[in-house]
């Protein structure tokens, strides 16, 4: 089922662009909030937690909790404080080399 949690009918979201999340192509809108765009495209798991390797996603949406930290165009940044640009490449940060301590 293709899911899009974006609110319908009220807003014209502007220019639609391609972005890439962990090599998967998604459609988003230029200027949209990245965290919201990923969430609404059902990309809810953004990374795995430090010790227990459990799925994590958006939580506070104001840049406080650091849960949505991702590699955005090669640099670490919070998705909730990032706006979408065309061809944006987003990767989960793989901490699998981290022993579980």
């Amino acid at each position, binding site marked *: 089922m293709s899911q899009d949690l974006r609110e319908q009918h009220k*807003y014209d979201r502007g220019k639609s662009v391609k972005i890439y999340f962990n090599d998967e192509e998604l459609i988003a809108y230029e200027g949209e909030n990245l965290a919201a765009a990923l969430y609404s495209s059902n990309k809810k798991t953004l990374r795995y937690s*430090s010790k*227990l390797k459990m799925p994590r*996603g*958006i*939580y506070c*949406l104001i840049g406080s909790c650091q849960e949505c930290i991702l590699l955005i165009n090669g640099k670490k940044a919070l998705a909730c404080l990032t706006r979408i640009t065309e061809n944006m490449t987003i990767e989960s940060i793989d901490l699998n080399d981290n022993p579980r301590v």
Partner: protein
Amino acid sequence: MIIQEYDIIVIGAGPSGIAASVTSALNGAKVLIVDSNFDTGGQVYKPPPDTFQEIKKNYSTEIKIQKYHKKLLEEHGVHIALEHTVWQVSKGFQIYAFNNRNKKISWKCKTLIVATGTYERIIPFPGWTSPRVIGLAASTTLLKSHRVLPGYNTIVAGCGPLLAVVASGIIKAGGHVKAVIDLNGPFSWFSSISSMLTNPSSLIQGIGWLKDIIFSRTPIYFNSIVKEVINHKNELEINITKINSKGLINTENIIKINADSLCIGHGLIPSLDILTILGVKKFFDFQSASWLAKTDKYFQTSVNNLYIVGDGAGISGAVPAYEKGLLAGHSASLNLNFISHKYFQRITKKIFVKLKKFEKFGKSMAKLMTPPSGLIQNITDDTIICRCEDIKRGEIEKAIKSGAIEINQLKAWTRCGMGPCQGRTCEDTIARIMADHVGDRQTVGMFARKMPIKPIPMDCAVGDFKYEDIKKVEEAPL
């Protein structure tokens, strides 16, 4: 790195920050306002991105206010730095920030007004770290600003007016609220209605929220909490149970509801990171269950020329926040000799009168947002408390039994609060757990705050440099 000097810098572009900035600028000061978000308005007046166009051009009141506030800033020559995250503030007020392009910048000011508001409190429960569980305040951002639904079938839970805001927001946006789980009873809503009457516009707003919920026949479970969330592949199984007035579960009965998302929140906690680093005097306010800075009536802290305004100075809502900002702006202007004492007395007198009218309403709303202390009894030993470091309640209890009686000692022995969020998310819960053993929150203390205020990427901080450029320091002794 260019360092610009200002008379006044305001950190946080919510209503109180804007009020403080505009007032100071009007009084003649050179002012900068900084915010990490992409637009002004803070958490209350969060507009959609400027790349969105409203199809019917029927702006809500909140958007109208946001646009008006922004215009005020621009018209009065306040410099605006959006998408900037402040990571260090030193004494004498040197502010260091980095922007969304990973560039660092620094400013200096004579007076600093902190308007960083609050962050959300969520009392943990098994399953709360699921990606389908998001904060209540976070949900208002998702809905109002990002125009995205939390799910197709959402449960809204917790306490306070945000319950109604989020539930009605979801319904208005075309979503479905499966249930509202309020840990307070209906009576507590009624008891705040009298205070809402001192602020009629809020009463109308409040009725508006309730109307959506009632008309959509959303079931509301009062005096209830989410006991546990079980993650299935594409949905959540949410277990709900009843609590007594102290927050303790008083029944074996569990109601199970399936939903694809859970929006939950237990109030707001004033952000004191910057103030704590600068050494302000604080006290623990038992009513709101949060630490607050000691201030004079113009919101100046115990550190000269350092102010705290808005909900960060004590939760009372958006309208009083604006008035607090005005007071601080005038006080700062007076201390910098931009206005006369006579003018200052005259204008602040009027503001105090206005403020008094709103305080009662704001305080009763804040009361609804403070969860009972007993709620933590429901957190199992297996529940994660520190999200950054994956530390469970059982480990925290072990450290307390080994002798940790102060929160920084507990931090050293468990690693709670050592992750990227530096304890902002887990501090409140840990302090509540410790207070149960140790006696009270004042004794337990709060996590020591150190720079950076937010994590700073190394490559941004170091910039482009050669070996010869690195500052020379005295060689270590042989």
